[in-house]
């Protein structure tokens, strides 16, 4: 089974003063992978500047815009349509013997190959001496431990917008125990990495038609690498495995690698930005 | 050549030329006033006000008594005055710095020496008895710079840009001097029956433009308002004339944009038009309304400079 998706991404930017020079880079195109295909992109901006399609340092598709005239307002609109196959998160033998996997994660080669997603970054560092009441239980399988971690993270943080920023570090999240999907994901990644399981931050869209919790903009969840199984998506904000409702754009070590919009604006004074994202799906 | 660097070279040329004109104006006015044939022209206040007027910073309060040392310091060595010679030289050097890889070592070294000379000139000496030494050194050093520009640079676009800067500035400064001296001639007429057209100020003006000797050779008469203006504005052979400067700008813009027929938005087209206007003008037309003429030419020069900026420096 598959779903036909349509996503509309809009942003409006207004500036108090003339902007003489500006660059934007959008990292918002749904990626092509095993379950997402036939991605069609329509992108436009209100100044009719060229839309430069490119690939960023981590290999994901971007759109760069560099208007050649001065302006006080610019709007962007993107429309994506694509096919998303149904995902069964449990499509692997759940009774897998974990002895091999547990050995594998201790090997040096494994640590080197997955170095990027095992290291601590400023956004995924647990402060020294943090006592969180969660530990991996060696009696459980890796998968069970991760499911427990998902559950624990979901319960540890209360979903609340406006408390944290995109660059809020975990020490503050742990102190307030409030945050949004980025914070859930950062905490989940940090805990997973601490236990030797490679974890990466995923940025994408969430189909909220079925009542899932997320921002009205972009969503974030995690993917972890389970030896002998592969990368598996966990959404700690909703305490579920990533499924057909999770549209992946890109992944990275943390939010910093995945920022959906980067802007370099040469102007003074205030600016206002409005976003809206609409995700629609239709089962085929 | 990079657009930004071309802009720097253009302004390097302008600032070098500007510093020289200010220096000569100070020098000639100050020293020729000392034994001027009429009281007004000898008057210290009159001379100091004329200097400020030429610099574009006139003293508006007629009753104010200006202090000579303050005025000289402000025009010469005050780094807080953006129009001062020292500020101008600093800007010339700063512009040269960022284009250092494009100009010759010889030219850069000469600019650098020039800068250090001005920067290290003792302030106390300057305002008391260094005016002549300081200003004549500036005139000499800028002459060396012109020599290095002509003699050590490739006569390509780099040279053309600098020469355009120099000549637009020269035409501008000569016009400002004319404006200033015209103003002085109006103010000083009447004393000792000196009429406007035979004012002593015309001689001073020619000296400020280093054109007195050649003017005498050309007309073989004492300068009058008409002959002076004709010589400094319209004579294409006078190296300091507005006409000559426009011819030079016209010649050099062709190196940057060698098209035979310019489109009407180009710098070449605009320069050609302005040049043609003065080429076929006679001095009596100008004399009818000198004030309007001066405003008109300054306006044209600003437009040319803006056009250069738009066509070559902005991408």
């Amino acid at each position, binding site marked *: 089974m598959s779903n036909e998706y349509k996503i509309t991404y809009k942003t409006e930017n207004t500036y108090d003063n003339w902007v003489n020079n500006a660059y934007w*880079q959008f990292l918002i195109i749904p990626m092509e992978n095993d379950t997402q295909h036939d991605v069609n992109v329509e992108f436009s901006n209100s100044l009719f500047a060229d839309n*430069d399609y490119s690939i*960023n340092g981590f290999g994901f598709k971007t759109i*760069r815009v560099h208007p050649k005239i001065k302006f006080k307002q610019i709007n962007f609109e993107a429309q994506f349509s694509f096919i998303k196959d149904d995902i069964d998160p449990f499509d692997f033998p759940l009774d897998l013997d974990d002895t091999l996997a547990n050995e594998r994660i201790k090997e*040096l080669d494994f640590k080197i190959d997955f170095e990027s997603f095992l290291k601590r970054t400023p956004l995924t560092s647990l402060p020294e001496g943090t006592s969180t009441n969660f530990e991996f239980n060696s009696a459980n399988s890796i998968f069970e431990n991760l499911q427990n971690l998902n559950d624990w993270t979901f319960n540890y943080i209360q979903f609340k917008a406006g408390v944290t920023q995109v660059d809020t570090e975990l020490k503050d999240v742990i102190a307030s125990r409030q945050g949004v999907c980025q914070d859930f994901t950062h905490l989940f990644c940090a805990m997973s990495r601490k236990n030797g399981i490679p974890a990466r931050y995923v940025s994408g869209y969430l189909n909220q038609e079925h009542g899932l919790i997320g921002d009205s903009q972009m969503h974030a969840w995690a993917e972890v690498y389970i030896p002998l199984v592969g990368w598996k998506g966990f959404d700690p904000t909703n305490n579920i495995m990533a499924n057909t409702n999770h549209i992946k754009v890109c992944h990275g070590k943390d939010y910093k690698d995945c920022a959906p919009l*980067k802007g370099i604006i040469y102007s003074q004074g205030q600016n206002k930005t409005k976003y809206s994202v609409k995700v629609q799906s239709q089962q085929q | 050549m*990079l657009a*930004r660097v071309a802009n720097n070279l253009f302004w390097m040329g302008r600032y070098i030329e500007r510093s020289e004109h200010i220096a000569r104006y100070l020098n000639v006015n100050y020293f020729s006033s000392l034994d001027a044939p009429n009281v007004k022209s000898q008057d210290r206040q009159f001379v100091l006000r004329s200097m400020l007027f030429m610099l574009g910073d006139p003293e508006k309060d007629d009753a104010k008594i200006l202090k000579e040392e303050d005025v000289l310091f402000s025009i010469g060595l005050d780094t807080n005055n953006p129009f001062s010679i020292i500020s101008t030289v600093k800007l010339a050097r700063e512009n040269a710095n960022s284009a*250092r890889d494009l100009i010759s070592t010889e030219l850069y070294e000469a600019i650098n020496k020039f800068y250090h000379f001005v920067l290290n000139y003792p302030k106390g000496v300057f305002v008391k008895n260094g005016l002549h030494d300081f200003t004549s050194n500036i005139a000499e050093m800028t002459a060396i710079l012109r020599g290095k520009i002509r003699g050590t640079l490739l006569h390509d676009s780099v040279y053309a840009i600098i020469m355009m800067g120099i000549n637009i500035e020269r035409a501008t400064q000569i016009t400002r001097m004319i404006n200033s001296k015209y103003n002085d001639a109006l103010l000083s007429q009447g004393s000792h029956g000196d009429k406007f057209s035979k004012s002593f100020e015309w001689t001073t003006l020619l000296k400020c433009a280093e054109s007195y000797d050649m003017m005498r050779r050309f007309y073989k008469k004492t300068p009058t308002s008409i002959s002076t203006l004709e010589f400094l504005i319209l004579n294409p052979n006078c190296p300091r004339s507005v006409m000559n400067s426009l011819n030079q700008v016209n010649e050099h813009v062709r190196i940057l944009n060698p098209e035979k027929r310019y489109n009407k938005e180009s710098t070449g087209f605009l320069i050609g038009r302005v040049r043609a206007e003065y080429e076929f003008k006679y001095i009596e037309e100008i004399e009818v309304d000198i004030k309007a003429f001066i405003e008109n030419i300054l306006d044209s020069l600003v437009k040319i400079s803006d056009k250069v900026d738009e066509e070559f420096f902005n991408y």
Partner: protein
Amino acid sequence: MANIENQIFSSYQKNPELYDEIFDSEGKIKEVYQKLFDIYGEHSISDYVNLNSKAKASFFNQGITFQVYGDNDVQEKIFPFDLFPRIIDPDEWDIIERGSIQRSKALNLFLWDIYHDKKILKDKIVPIDLITSSANYLDQMNGVNPPGGIYNHISGTDVIKHKDGKYYVLEDNIRCPSGVSYVICNRTALKKALFGVFNHYQTHTVTNYAENLLELLESVKPKGVDVPNVVVITPGMFNSAFYEHSYLAKTMGVELVEGRDLFVENDFVYMKTIKGPEKVDVIYRRIDDQFIDPLEFRPDSALGVPGLFAAYKKGNVTLANAPGTGVADDKAVYTYMPQIIKYYLNEEPILNNVHTYHCSRPDELKYVLEHIHELVIKPVDEAGGYGISIGNTLTKEEIEKVKLEIKESPRKYVAQPIMSLSVHPTYIDETESFEQRHVDLRTFTILGKDKEFVLKGGLTRVALKRGNLIVNSSQGGGSKDTWVLKK
């Protein structure tokens, strides 16, 4: 002290503890310096006072200066230049040259490896922490193949001569090593001041650096480009090395650009000229990784070019040195250089590393604890000279304290023997005489696919403060013309 019958050296004081580059241990002038010594002796000290001030003025007028920012004004300073040249004989130079090339090659292979298969980590030659803990390791460079396989096109190797008379490497600089323009300026200045001495020596030229650099930069052009358009990118005229940037651009005959002169369109890089956009193919960048592209790295960088890294990764423009080279000039990597050389080249290191004792290894820990008074103890994770203890300056109590700290967390510390830089006669302004001063040497190596070149000269830096071992220009250091003699 031996008798030196030479007027200008009559007050030269020789400290027997130090290795003097021109006098042997018995106080006799070394053969290679004899002629120079005689010629200098024909002058009086007042000649030097005079020549010295002329040389200074010449640097000043040429604008070979850097800026020092004071409270309310900007001052221009020259890098002090010393009139007494350093001579390196052909055999010694041979070691330095081969050693510099060997290190550059090994580092290049190391960089390729850690951005590809990471074999050296898997074979446990160097620990994985070297990469995970390095802020200079760029994940974005993983799997990227730079043109010609070259990462460190330009390297600067800092070597010193220890009192045992052997050369040791202190540091490999493979980000944006600077100083090469001073090598050439120093030569020019010395020729102007004392041209007579050059008649007596067969000295290698140093003016061929720019042509070699340009040849290299053109050789690493992107695929499909016929005649590459090369530029040098500078942070701008307020950068302390701006003179060098403009010097290199000028002598190579290429444009010197700033970030704002470039822009990226369709993953190609263009510069803004008076005739419109012009494509750029190779960029010799004198801007650190973190500043080259605000969309990929530090967003607050006003020096870089948005989109540059994407253009680089696509292979449409070459950056020299390649992004991510910084990881290999970290202090920790240095300690593994002998192993790195052996691993990739299967050769013994030609230049010595200063030996490093890792306190994490029990036998080395034992040695360190027994020899603290002759060692420098450095924390592995601190930069900028913090937490360093120099053994021979410590009191008994302090030694005990350091021992305790090491025993508590041996992994945190490494130790190195205290190195003594050689000294060279140097003209000192304040005393108007020649005195012993510590010197080092920075060599400049150019590495291409089929090319290796070491500038025959290098920058000899002098610590102008008596007894000071730090030769950095920011610490009041000067420099000397350095002669490499022909065989």
